[in-house]
């Protein structure tokens, strides 16, 4: 038996997993469900939750708590932690309660056309951060969550490679 705390899209799930024959018993926020899970390839599986079928793929990097889970083609980023550990972390003010936005990296090589934020500025989810020109198109880079800008690593007119750090948040 194991007890986890999962944070996804701002929602918290308290999940207890227990093996039961070939399947699993999952108690999710108090509601019990039967889960079957069969691997179909590296990081891919078919998962049946009370019979409902889902194609799952999970990307993780070892002990890191963040996962990119794809359910039937829809991507969901989440954090998973052992329940007690999560509570200890929370108590220590280091909670996984919110998947905090840490940095923005260049999604492609290109030219920085505009930088719309400054260091120390508070940004809202969806706010325009900067504009990159690539493939002859202007591409708006927006914040995916509310955060405070710690450092603006690029400036207007600068060329960037894919993966270059653009913005760091507090």
């Amino acid at each position, binding site marked *: 038996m194991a007890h986890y705390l999962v944070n996804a899209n701002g929602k918290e799930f308290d999940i207890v997993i227990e093996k039961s024959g070939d399947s699993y018993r999952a108690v999710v926020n108090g509601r019990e469900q039967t889960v079957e899970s069969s691997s179909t390839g590296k990081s891919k599986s078919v998962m049946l939750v009370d019979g409902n079928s889902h194609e*799952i793929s999970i990307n993780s990097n070892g002990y*890191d708590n963040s996962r990119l889970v794809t*359910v039937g083609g829809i991507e969901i980023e989440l954090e998973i932690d052992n329940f007690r550990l999560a509570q200890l972390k929370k108590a220590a003010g280091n909670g996984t309660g919110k998947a905090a936005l840490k940095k923005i990296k260049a999604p492609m090589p290109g030219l920085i056309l505009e930088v719309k934020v400054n260091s120390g500025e508070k940004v809202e989810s969806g706010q325009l951060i900067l504009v990159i020109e690539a*493939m002859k198109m202007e*591409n*708006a*880079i927006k914040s995916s969550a509310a955060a405070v800008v710690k450092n603006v690593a690029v400036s207007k007119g600068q060329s960037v490679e894919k993966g270059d750090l653009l913005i760091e948040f507090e």
Partner: protein
Amino acid sequence: MKKQIKTILIANRGEIAVRIIRACKELGITSVAVFSSADRSACHVAMADEAYFIGEAPSSESYLVQDKIIETAKKCQADAIHPGYGFLAENAEFAGRCVQEKIIFIGPKAETIELLGDKIKARQKAIEADLPVLPGEEIDVANSNDALAKAESIGFPLLIKATVGGGGKGMRVVKSAEHFNESLIRASSEAKSAFGDGRVFIEKFLENPRHIEFQILCDTYGNVVHLGERECSIQRRHQKLIEESPSPVMTPELRQNMGEAALKIARASNYIGAGTVEFMVDRDLYYYFLEVNTRLQVEHPVTELVTAIDLVKEQIAIAENKTLSFSQDDISFSGHAIECRISAEDPQQGFVPSTGTIQDYRMPSGPGVRLDSGVESGSEISVYYDPLFAKLIVWGKDRSEAISRMKRALEEFRISGLKTTIGFHGIVMENENFVSGDFSTKFIETEFPNYEFEAADDKTIETAAIAAAIDKFKNESRINLQNGKSSRAAISTWSLYHRQRNMKKFSGSR
């Protein structure tokens, strides 16, 4: 004089090169691919009978270099060159050079490309051929007073357009006189830098038009037919995203009238080959000539599915000086086809291009589903070329079946390794106004302001959470087993915590 084509060089890449290679294979014609250094292991290289290197990754050093393409065509003794779309497809100079080199250019004559590529001349031709056009005039950018006077006589809102070129560059909507001058200068300079020609003209702007185009086929003996329309109103920044045939607003009478109009300009411009006549259609179903695209369109498959005519094979037959094997009366339309363009873009981030290597690639298939793709598992999507890498096309007995089939096919389509527009198309297929057929070219900006699409629903998020928990449980059980412990033994939370902290030292900060 008829001439059997034995070898075709395909001066293109990606899905359209694959499309043309498939036609060649079915016709027993040797297909020759060309490739840049970024495309050494691309699908079109692997699938063609022969393939030759033509230069570095930027298209200006490879796919756009006429000398290299002509030289390769001569080396491999190609009878003909198929330009696909984009790159050299609408380059009159290149079409002319092919003729000089005694290579068949699969497309209209150079003079037709030149005539129709100039929007002012094309518009003039359309007026002569009695096609309805929107009020508009050519203007001199240097003479701003005269330009403003002309603008005011047409009235606002109006559209400033580059005389040469396309793809939304050099195009500005002007809502009132006060912004006219500034917009004019920006449009002209954009046109100059994009097409090397700063000329622009102005045209009355329709507020919520539909974009409807007609496919035409013309042989070298003056036989001309149209293959019905394609509804292409679902666009973003003047780039088409979804196309269908028939248009939800089409009537038999309107089809006959617009089709006849399309054939008039085809005849007036001595058109040869496959082409597309584009129109704007207003809410009262008045239509206005827009332009002629002198090439195979990206969206040609929807016409193929409703007419059962293979447009690439017809292009090749026309290039062989064959007579069209059907007349207008032989062409019938059956069912409904929809195409979704699948691009390496992240719709949630304003359609920012997404590059990378395609990991898993599971294609949709089954009844009524066609995929025209230029990639497979392991393919690299680079920054150098158009992010469009596949087109998903479905046929249904009616629009409703086509939509439900498209949803089903989009659900089956899986790509990992980069972001795509698959999910976005799924959302459009469920949009009320799309389903009812009530939309215009404003659809995307009206329905999805700020490109904000529905996020995953609660059930899906919960499923993801359970999946992650099961995955972690399985991994921990395996670790415990490896450590010789029973799979049920609870691992010490504290030791796990310390182990995690230690791992982080090596895996870098988060």
